[in-house]
């Protein structure tokens, strides 16, 4: 089953495209964007897994110098692509608006995620690009940009927590069963990891630092499960959606 | 109202017994706690093993009686017991290292 085009990503059992075409397109785009985002933050900019907080200014300068090229390429591309986050959030909000809980929670989700994008990855992109812009700057200033970028990237908690909360509430009270109920509980786990992440502002080392086993690694596992489930769920619910035509959608669900 | 319930169900009496045993074990572990003593406590593998066993018993009672896992499908019984066993063994193994 090829997934390289939107029409083949969401199909009925007979391989014909299912669901609405606009939803199909953005549902296919969702994992594509997150894959690009993953390549950028992991392989290019190297902020996930994070560089250590408990290093000297000279070490931070060394990090910026070693990875200057990939940081610049990665984050400049991200600055262009970041509008894609708006699209992925819109898709989730669209599915939320189909739930019987109504559109207000969907708007709250957009609001929370939209505000969260600023500290979430915009700030780290600009900080790191500024640090690599003039490599001969005072090392303490480069160290400051390093800390500022990493703290905002990992610590942008409340906005996302609000988005996860309204998502959980919408899913739990939805009578149309757009998303499965267990996904609401996954979203609540996300909130818990965000609350724990508050500790990274206090500890430069140990399990609660921004690279710590509890603050970071457990949170990354939970996030991966959440995101993976969401991609799977978005595909399923797009396939099940009745299409706005004269004929009623009667085929079996696909995917 | 409970005298003719089938044997395989939760009853008020079973719940009360479960609660009583749980509280008893809790109070019992009070005496073994380091903060109960004013001198510097010494670590003790024996005491810790005993406390972990008591914890395992309490956890199992909460799961089996209160959560009614004892009337649940087999996969849930195995899953909850498995979680408890792995946790206790892992904790004790790390403690001993």
């Amino acid at each position, binding site marked *: 089953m090829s997934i390289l085009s939107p029409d083949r990503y969401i199909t009925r059992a007979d391989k014909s495209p299912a669901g609405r075409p606009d939803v199909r397109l953005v549902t296919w785009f969702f994992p594509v964007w997150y894959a690009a985002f993953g390549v950028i933050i992991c392989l290019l900019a190297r902020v996930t897994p994070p560089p250590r907080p408990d290093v000297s200014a000279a070490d931070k300068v060394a990090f910026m110098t070693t990875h200057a090229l990939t940081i610049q390429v990665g984050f400049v591309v991200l600055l262009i692509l970041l509008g894609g986050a708006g699209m992925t959030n819109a898709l989730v909000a669209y599915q939320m608006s189909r739930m019987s809980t109504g559109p207000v929670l969907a708007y709250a989700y957009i609001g929370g995620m939209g505000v969260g994008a600023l500290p979430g990855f915009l700030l780290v992109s600009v900080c790191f690009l500024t640090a690599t812009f003039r490599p001969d700057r005072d090392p303490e200033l480069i160290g400051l940009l390093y800390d500022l970028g990493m703290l905002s990237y990992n610590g942008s908690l409340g906005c996302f927590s609000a988005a996860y909360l309204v998502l959980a509430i919408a899913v739990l009270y939805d009578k149309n069963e757009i998303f499965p109920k267990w996904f609401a509980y996954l979203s609540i786990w996300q909130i818990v990891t965000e609350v724990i992440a508050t500790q990274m502002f206090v500890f430069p080392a140990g*399990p609660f630092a921004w690279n710590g086993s509890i603050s970071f690694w457990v949170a990354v596992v939970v996030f991966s499960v959440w995101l993976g489930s969401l991609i799977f769920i978005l595909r399923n619910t797009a396939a099940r959606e009745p299409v706005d035509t004269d004929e009623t959608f009667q085929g079996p669900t696909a995917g | 109202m409970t005298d003719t319930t*089938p044997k*395989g169900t939760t009853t*008020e009496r079973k719940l009360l017994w479960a*609660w009583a045993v749980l509280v008893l074990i809790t109070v019992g572990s009070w005496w073994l706690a380091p903060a109960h003593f004013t001198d510097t406590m010494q670590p003790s593998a024996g005491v810790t093993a005993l*406390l972990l066993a008591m914890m395992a018993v309490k*956890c199992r009672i*909460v799961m089996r009686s209160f959560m009614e896992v004892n*009337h649940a499908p087999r996969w849930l019984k195995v899953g909850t017991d498995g979680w408890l066993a792995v946790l206790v063994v*892992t904790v004790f193994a790390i403690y001993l290292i």
Partner: protein
Amino acid sequence: MTHSDSSLTATARDTDRAAQPSVGRAAHLPGDIHMWVMVLGDLIIFSSYFVIFMIYRSMSPEAYLRAQQHLDINIGVVNTVVLLTSSWFVARSVLSARAGDHTRAIRFVYAAGACGVLFMALKGYEWAAKIGAGYTNSEEFFSFYYVITGVHFLHVVIGLIVLGVVIRDLRNPARRRTSMVEAGAVYWHMVDLLWVVIFTLLYVMR
């Protein structure tokens, strides 16, 4: 094949062995599968915190043991008993709901909620006392203590919301479902279960 409960001659720990299903009674999953995904997943996530705690503890056991002695064991025991009692109330409310006695079920849930509030008050007092005495997260043991008990506290808050939803549904004849009460109960028992482990690992184990 019904007969009165004669399992009391066995020890109370035999609640498992005594609970063989009678003829014609199938295994019953309390609540729904979604809540069990939540509970089992939550147990696994918390277990990862517990294991990480144990690993760091094994790296400085004397320091942890010394720090541990500053915990107030009395409040710890009282809080454990409070939560165990709240679980008993919740379990009783499930029985009442099954028997159709919704008024009683609601009262039991209120009682459990009151225990939950009491737990939170005691915890708040305990934290205030520790911080006032200077035991902040500058010590590694205490940083674990505050994070683990803090996340647990958050679960208690969520639990109170869940109990509130259970009460609201029980009050309304159109919304009453035993599976809803059972699901809420399973969540609340999980909160209790986690505390049993936290109490052992943080307060009493040495």
